[in-house]
């Protein structure tokens, strides 16, 4: 049986369509099957023109004076981040080059990088200043419609109360790859739904 140009074009188109559908289905299954992790987010540029409405996902939080940076042997390299659940969110316990080393420090491990500036204690009458902990993960954006994006933008810049903070809901698969599931804004969950 000989296929002409029309049949071959339709077959190529069908393969391309199947690949796109498979991509979405595989990602959706991996997202729902992974372990849920909730991490605090820091305000960055929340939206960008020409790229649609999205929230730039920067993970991290301030370290109050008296707290220490989590132990890490990563430097500026990518490695493994160890997390542990505390209440309704997760906290960073350590970062390490090997997954085994990270797993000894926390119950969940995911791929990423950790940077930490320790708090500066007060000296010679100067006020102590907080440090900063940031995580670099494979997820960088959360796309939302204009109304949602504006609400998230407001919430991220409002530091008036703990409940006003923005958290990312991630799904971490067995390979330690994080995927975005949604956000918690003002205590309200905004989930990715079909």
């Amino acid at each position: 049986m000989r296929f002409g140009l029309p049949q071959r074009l339709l077959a190529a188109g069908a393969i391309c369509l199947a690949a796109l559908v498979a991509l979405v289905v595989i990602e959706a299954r991996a997202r729902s099957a992974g372990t849920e992790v909730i991490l605090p987010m820091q305000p960055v540029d929340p939206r960008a023109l020409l790229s649609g409405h999205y929230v730039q996902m920067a993970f991290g939080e301030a370290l109050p004076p008296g707290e220490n940076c989590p132990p890490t042997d990563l430097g500026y390299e990518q490695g493994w981040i160890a997390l542990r659940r505390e209440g309704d969110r997760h906290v960073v316990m350590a970062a390490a080059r090997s997954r085994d080393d990270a797993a000894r420090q926390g119950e969940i491990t995911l791929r990423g990088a950790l940077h930490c500036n320790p708090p500066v204690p007060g000296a010679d009458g100067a006020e102590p200043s907080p440090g900063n902990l940031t995580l670099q993960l494979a997820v960088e954006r959360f796309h939302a419609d204009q109304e949602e994006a504006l609400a998230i933008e407001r919430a991220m810049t409002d530091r008036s109360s703990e409940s006003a903070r923005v958290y990312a809901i991630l799904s971490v698969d067995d390979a330690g790859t994080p995927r975005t599931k949604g956000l918690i804004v003002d205590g309200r969950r905004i989930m990715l739904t079909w």
Partner: protein
Amino acid sequence: MAYRRRLERDLDRWIAAGHVSPDRRAAMLAMVEPGPRLDAATALAWIGAVLLGLAVIALVAANWDGLPRMVRFTLVLALFALMIGGAAWAASRNRPALSNGLATLAALVFAAAVGLVGQIFDIAGKPEQALIGSGIAAAAIALAGRSTGAGVVALALVGIGDGMSLGDNLWWLTAAAVPAALAAWSWRSAALAHAASLALLVAIGWLCGRADHSNGWFLLASVGAAGIAALARSAARRTDDGVFPTFYGWAVWSALLLLVAAGVAGADGATAIPHRLAWLAAAAGAIALGRHDRHALITTGGVLFLVGAAMAILVDLGVNLVTAAALFFFCALAAIGGGLALRYLGKARGT
């Protein structure tokens, strides 16, 4: 109409020279086939279709945020299916140009669809992987539908995807360049030949640059490109295909560029002069070749590289303008001598 006007002028010259009888002028002009014309009804139908398309796009864009993710995904898939289905329909009606155009659009829509699906479902991934994946899909469409446009899109996507690694890794482009050149040859496509030649040049330059003793490899590649140029020139003179002159032009450009690259590192000041003279001679040779073969791409390349060689010599010799003047004077003598010799040989052969 441009062809008819040119023919009228030529006919007048031929009649004046006595090659054509004046009473045949009208009959010959009457045999000129009229070019394709778009009648008013067809033009209005096209305008209507375009406006309808714009209206649909504007309506969807206005409500994009309010559409559920599944609907957005379905719209993206439907647009791609429409394009590829249209290309298949045009191919079945034996309209290759329309099929090629729609297949090209389908390849572009697929690339956009990958980006949109990533955005709609917040699928994290590296942009270069999305581009290379889209390039592979475009290549599949090109091969399935013999679409030269989709082939060009495939090369462009793979090239941009590889380029996003900032030159660290151009393996995909390197792997795609030779099949693209073969496809251009097989399908007799000048457009694909341009894209494939450019991809080959970048790939060869990258491979030479990452090798040890890269200057030697650049020089070897330059000689190889000159050899390919000779083969393509020979093929171009034997056939009427537009693909061989294209390969010929780009092979000369490649030979020049690779020759320049062979002397960029490791030599400076007066030690670089032998390389610069070879560069100057090759550029002058390219101008002569381009003029002789009436090949604008080669002539243009020759002029640009000649200017580049002159500037490089001035930089190498610093402020020693007297030495530079002497060098250029002897080069000018060589160029004039070469031109006179070519003219003498041409007259001797009766060409």
